[in-house]
């Protein structure tokens, strides 16, 4: 860890100002000199590992009084960016109308981490790629653009099979983001110019040729809330992992269905543990819509979801696994009692 300055932001303007002041032109957000601190469960780790070296920390926890709402009102849901994972997961209204959200949060991390971590920080968490997190490896295109990728032909069991590029195969590690992207959530962003909203699907950027640019957020911008329209009581989050708790997904599926009289009116499928960004499987959704559910349909949808997947030495199993997870999640969503 390196020395840094610490500042508590007592209102959003102050936070934005503090974060903007330190922002240098052309620096991607991940390299920005000032970083916001919420739960600290990712940032502090990466600072200890010397992966992130911010000169300034802006503590945004004092903003929680305005930014931690959990409001499943009528047909709309609003979640403040500083709401704690554990509070949202335990909320009755979320469990009833958005089980995919509740379970994506409940199945993530450990109880202690869920008590600390916030929703905004959760969606911004960075990859667990071992080579990214170990600065003794010089070749990491996320840390040093153009330096190469040690994971590509290294130990890559945990790495992505979708959304990859020849520059980076690091997996987006979170769970909650899959629920958000499946439900067409919007993200509310507070910056110098005030507040703007955009589809959550536009927040993360696949690595392409710039793996160091992970989101479309600009330095000085903060996520302040998430919003979902409609209720999704018929939704599940299925997560396959090496141990029963406190472990990242090898493969996960967020599925939300609207089934009427046996016909799938609307289908949402998102994938975790297998892609470089929160991943929406629209090809799978297209196959499902308007159809009567059966196992063969689920299988076709699962195949479609992974049609473009490319495995490497240790992670090819994720393609077959991912398909089974999607098919099983669809089955669970169809048969769940609501």
């Amino acid at each position: 860890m390196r020395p840094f300055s610490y500042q508590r932001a007592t209102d959003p303007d102050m936070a934005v100002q503090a974060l903007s002041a330190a922002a240098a032109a052309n620096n991607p957000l991940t390299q920005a000199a000032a970083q916001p601190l919420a739960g600290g469960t990712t940032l502090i780790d990466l600072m200890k590992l010397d992966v992130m070296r911010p000169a300034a920390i802006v503590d945004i926890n004092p903003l929680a009084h305005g930014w931690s709402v959990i409001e499943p009102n009528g047909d709309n849901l609003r979640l403040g960016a500083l709401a704690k994972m554990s509070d949202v997961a335990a909320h009755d209204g979320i469990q009833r109308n958005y089980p995919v959200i509740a379970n994506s949060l409940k199945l993530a991390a450990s109880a202690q981490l869920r008590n600390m971590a916030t929703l905004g920080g959760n969606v911004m968490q960075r990859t667990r790629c071992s080579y990214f997190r170990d600065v003794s490896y010089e070749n990491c295109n996320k840390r040093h653009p153009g330096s190469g990728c040690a994971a590509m032909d290294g130990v890559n069991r945990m790495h992505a099979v979708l959304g990859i590029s020849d520059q980076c195969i690091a997996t987006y590690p979170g769970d909650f983001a899959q629920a958000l992207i499946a439900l067409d959530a919007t993200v509310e962003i507070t910056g110098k110019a005030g507040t703007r909203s955009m589809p959550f699907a536009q927040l993360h950027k696949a690595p392409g040729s710039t793996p160091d640019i992970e989101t479309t957020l600009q330095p000085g911008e903060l996520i302040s809330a998430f919003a979902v329209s409609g209720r999704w009581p018929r939704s599940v989050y299925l997560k396959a992992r090496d141990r029963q708790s406190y472990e990242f997904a090898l493969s996960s599926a967020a599925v939300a269905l609207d089934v009427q009289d046996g016909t799938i009116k609307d289908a949402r499928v998102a994938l975790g543990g297998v892609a470089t960004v929160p991943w929406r499987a629209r090809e799978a959704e297209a196959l499902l819509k308007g159809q009567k559910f059966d196992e063969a349909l689920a299988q076709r949808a699962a195949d479609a979801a992974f049609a473009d997947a490319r495995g490497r030495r240790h992670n090819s199993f994720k393609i077959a696994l991912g398909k089974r997870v999607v098919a099983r999640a669809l089955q669970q969503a169809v048969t769940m009692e609501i």
Partner: protein
Amino acid sequence: MTAAAPEPKINMGQPVPRYDAVVKVTGRATYASDMPLADPAYAFLVTSAIAKGRIDRFDLDDARRVRGVIDIVTHENGPKLKESKLFSNGGYAGTTIQPLKSADIAHDGQIIAVVIAESYEAAREAANRVKVSYTAAAPSATFDSPGTTIAAAKGQNAQFKEDPKVGNFAKAFEEAEVKLTASYDTPTQHHNPMELFSTSCAWMGDELVIYEPSQFVYGLKYGVAEQLGIDADKVRVVNPYVGGGFGSRGSMTPRTAIIASIAKRLSRPIKLVPTRDQGFTITTYRAETRHEIKLGASRDGKLLALKHEGAEISSRPDAYCVGGTKTTTRLYACPNVDSLVSIVRADRNTPGFMRSPPEVPYLFALESAMDELAVKLNMDPVELRRINDTTVEPIGGKPYTSRSLMACFDEAAKAFGWAQRSPQPKSMSDGDWLIGYGCAATCYPTQMGPAAARVRLQRDGRTRVEIAGHEIGTGAYTVVAQTAAERLGVPLEKVAVFIGDSDLPPAPVAGGSNSTASTCSVVMMVCDQIRQRLFKAAMPSQSLTDKAKETVGIGQTPATQAAKGDRPLDLEKAFDALGVGVVEEYGEWKPEGAPLDSFRAMHSGQVRLVGGHAMKDQIAYAFGAEFVEVRVNRFTHEIRCPRLVGAFAAGRIMNPRTARSQLMGGLIWGMSSALLEATDIDERNARYVNDNFADYLVPVNADVPGVEVILLSEQDDHINPAGVKGLGELANVGTNAAICNAIYHATGQRIRKLPVRLENIEV
């Protein structure tokens, strides 16, 4: 009595709470890095980013500019240390690779610089700013990597003297009605004790005190003295509590002498707390192994031929191996046995002891093969063990001192509900989950070593026991206190125990599950010396026979003795007769068959363990049987283990509470070893990749919802005065095979490579 404190059976002590329970749960126990130091400087290690090659140069300018940096030590200005030989060659070291000696790099994560600063934070920041230029060579990472060499262990490892064999294996295998040939692999694993590998060194003039979590304070004392070239009387190692060891702290690592010599040079105490990932490369580990097993049997299940070949990874300079064939060739009755252990040298740090070093990898192979043979014979695997059970080991024809293997199988099978198993693979399920039942034998050699103790008894019954044993979480304080209280007949709460300090009388390494047997045996002996003195003084015209003296308490008589009509000695009268206020005795004990140089070795930090197969006319092992339920998800192929049941017999159980805790931890570790733990090596550069707790998985509570430990009553009068076999390394041996056997039952798929992960399942 509760599950945590089982009712003692015959030949078991009381399940008293841990001696150190309160200080530990209240955070008052002082571990090595908690020890207060006067004005310490802080060290942070810089470790190599390559596994083979040379350091061309350091750029230290940026690091030196960090405020508070005092010194940066590299091979260019490094301490001049004497070499220490490997422990197996009569030295103290766990590796002969000595860092900071030259620009050469022999393995990943080798110590290449030590930054000393006024604070831990400054040292760490400066270490991050050290820039190193290397000339890297292509390293050999592991089996099958280009550039490795292979040779038989015999002849290069002084402690591996013989490849056991008997009869004519080739002929018997050829002629056997039922044959099995199978290969098995086990992975690299790291101990990862909770307490990090810290070292603090403080000099007072020419006297050095080392605070370091150690499983062998005498070995460390003499080893560091040798490396520094000073008299061992000037070195003291202190660690009253050790936050887990598992073998990783049994032999000296290079860090200690380095920190000691820097502390001397700077005339300041130095405290080093390495990081978790540095712990993967600055100490030892369990090397990956490969096995081929051949079994030949008659139709009715009698083993006729057994061959076990094992290969193990070691470093370039050191021929470390665990050689578990000494156990696997002797476990079952079999007239024709062959074996071979080989060592494969790669560009790695030297491996070392890790909980049940030989038995974990080698019994995984044998106990998996036994299950495969049972399938071929269409036989219950428990019955196959029963048919081949023996009271005499087949290699040397020596009798087991006691052996309750089948009693363990029967007890555990009953508790587990083995009879409810439908033998066909894939025949049991529950919703999304395929269910499999599996079992395996477990065993561990009974070992003990020479030990000394000092015991002091006061007129009011207060007792002080001093022995340089080690509390690595096993309950060492507790069983030593119980032994003294029982032997002297004083209340447990009047006994104070002092261990973990090389100024105390020497005890062996806390390894090989010898501690309870060794320390309790010597404490019993020294307590008896005190009793003799008191009896002589109080009853000079002796009416009691010597035998009676053995059973009579001297202070408060336990109810059982009073019931037998034994008369307690009046402690105060005895002291009055002696005319003193304190009786103190020192004594040295060595096990039968210990080498002649045992006591000399004991006083120079050397270990002379005896036991297991290496006893003269007999062979001593503790046994157990383990049953597991495994569930494999049809869709995700996730593997879970909801139930672990083990029954164990290990001679006298000093304390059923601490024994159960050891065995429960062993079962959980066994499950972890089978399903989770493996250190990934990047074969391109021979570096460990998942060197942290986020990526090197160990079980969480949700992974082990049901663990049941059954302690069997067993008495063995042939091993040591305490009658203790030792059980710290007993339970984690059989679990690997039991789980793979259960996976076979659940899925019909035989898995011969650990750990088993969901991608290895093809349902």
